C-alpha cells in the first residue's frame, strides 16, 4: 500500500530559506541545502522548493541551490516559483529536480502544462494552485476561486474546473494551497482539499494551514489528500518529521518509516 507523503516546503529567496506569514514580511531561517539534508535524514518523503526571488537576473542562484541539493539528498524534490517557459523547466530539471511546479504562468498560459508534459513527461509537471473561498456563484460553481500574486488577484476561474482542466492538459500532480488557511496554523482547508482530490485522478498535495500533527491526520483522512505540505511546524523546531510520522502511524495512517 502506498504511504501518505510528508513534504517540507522551503521558500527560497536569493539562496536563503525564508518564511513569510500570509505573504507579508519574510525572515531568513537558514541555508536551503542544509535544511534539505536535515529533513532528508529525518524522513521527509519529498521536498518542495519555491523560489521567491523577485528579480529574474538572480535566478541563477536558485539553479545553483538545486544542483547542490541534488548532490546531497536522494529523495524526489520539486522546484516552483518563476517558472514561465519550457526552457525554465528544462534548466531546473537538468540541475537535478524531479519535478517542476507551475502556478500563475499556467493560469495565464495553460499550454505550458501540455508543453512541459510533452517534453518531460506528466510526472514531472506539478500544478500549483492558490485558492480562495468566495462562495458559490454562477461563475464559480465550486465556491473556490483561483487567485494569483499571493492572493491579491482574483482570476475569475473556478478552482475545481481548473484542476480538472490541468489534469487533462497533462499535469501529473496538484499542489493545492488554500490562501485562507495559509500561515494561520489552524489546519488545512479540508472541504476544498477533499473536493479537488476526489474529482481528479492525479495525486493532490494539501498545502496551507498546518500547525500540529492532528491537522495532517485530518487532511490525509477527511481531506483525502495524498500528501501534506508542512513549513513553519518543522522550520522552527516545534515538531519533528519523525514525531509527526509516529503520531500518524498511531492514528493508523500509513507513512514511510525510516529504517
Amino acid at each position, binding site marked *: *500500500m*502506498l*504511504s*501518505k*507523503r510528508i513534504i517540507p516546503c522551503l521558500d527560497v529567496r536569493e539562496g536563503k530559506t525564508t518564511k513569510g506569514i500570509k505573504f507579508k514580511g519574510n525572515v531568513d531561517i537558514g541555508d536551503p541545502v542544509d535544511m534539505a539534508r536535515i529533513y*532528508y535524514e529525518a524522513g521527509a*518523503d519529498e521536498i518542495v522548493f519555491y523560489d521567491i526571488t523577485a528579480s529574474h537576473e538572480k535566478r541563477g542562484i536558485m539553479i545553483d541551490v538545486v544542483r547542490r541539493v*541534488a*548532490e546531497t539528498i*536522494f*529523495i*524526489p524534490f520539486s522546484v516552483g516559483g518563476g517558472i514561465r517557459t519550457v526552457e525554465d523547466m528544462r534548466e531546473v*530539471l*537538468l540541475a*537535478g529536480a*524531479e519535478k517542476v511546479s507551475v502556478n500563475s504562468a499556467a493560469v495565464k498560459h495553460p499550454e505550458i502544462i501540455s508543453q512541459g508534459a510533452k517534453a*518531460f*513527461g*506528466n*510526472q*514531472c509537471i506539478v500544478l500549483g494552485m492558490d485558492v480562495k473561498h468566495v462562495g458559490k456563484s454562477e461563475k464559480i460553481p465550486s465556491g473556490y476561486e483561483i487567485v494569483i500574486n499571493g492572493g491579491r488577484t482574483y482570476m475569475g476561474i473556478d478552482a475545481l474546473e481548473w484542476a480538472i482542466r490541468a489534469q487533462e492538459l497533462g499535469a*501529473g*500532480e496538484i499542489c493545492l494551497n488554500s490562501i485562507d488557511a495559509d500561515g494561520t496554523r489552524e489546519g488545512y482547508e479540508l472541504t476544498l482539499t477533499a473536493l479537488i*482530490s*476526489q474529482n481528479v*485522478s*492525479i*495525486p493532490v498535495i494539501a498545502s496551507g494551514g498546518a500547525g500540529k500533527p492532528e491537522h495532517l491526520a485530518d487532511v490525509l483522512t477527511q481531506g*483525502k489528500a*495524498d*500528501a501534506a505540505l508542512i513549513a513553519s511546524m518543522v522550520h522552527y523546531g516545534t515538531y519533528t518529521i519523525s514525531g509527526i510520522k509516529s503520531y500518524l502511524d498511531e492514528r493508523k495512517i500509513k507513512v*514511510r*518509516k525510516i*529504517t
Partner: protein
Amino acid sequence: MIAIIDYKAGNLTSVARAVSHIGVECVVTGDAKTILNAERIIFPGVGAAGSAMESLKSLGLDKVIASAYAQGKPILGICLGTQIIMAYSEENDTPCLGIIAGKTRAFSKQMPDEDRRFLKIPQMGWNRICVKAGHPVLSGLNPEDEFYFVHGYYPSPDHAADIIAETEYGILFPSVIGVNNIIAMQFHPEKSGRPGLRILKNFCEWRPC
C-alpha cells in the same frame, strides 16, 4: 566503470549523482564502444515506451544492450528501462527489447480504493517490496524499507521464476524482476533514500555467476 545509458530519456543525472555518491565511477553515455567496454550498465529512463524505443533504435542502442547482456555484463534496469527490457509494452503498443519474456501492462484505471472511488494512476510515492526470491542486489534490506515509485505501467514476466519482488498497489505486481545477469526494478533506487543507495551499492558489487 559503470555506463549509464543515455538515450535522451531524461532523469539520468540523478542516477549518476547517486552512483557517484556511493563512491563508484560512472559515465552517462550513448556511445556503443564505451557501453560495451564498461564493467556494468545501468539502463534508466522516464517517459513513454514508444518514443524511448524509437530513440534507442535510432541510436543503435537496442543492439548494444542485447550484446552487453549476451556478454554477461551486469545490467540494472530502472523504471522505463525495466519496462523496455520486456518483449512488448502496452504503452503505445510497442515491441520492446525482449530480454525478459513477458509484457509491460497498464494499471487498470478502475482499481477500487477505500478513500476515493478509484486508486490514483500513476502510482506516485513510497511503497514496500515483498522479496520472493533472495537476490544479491537486494541483500541487507529491511522488510519495512520503502521505495519511490512513479508509474502507470508495470512489467509482467511470463515466467514466475523471473519475479524477484512484488508490490501491492490495487493489485500485486512485479516490482523487481531479473534473469541471469540482468536485474530490473520498477521503482527509482536513486530517489529512495538509504535503502535505494544500498541497492545501487549492491549492484556495483554484484558478480552474476
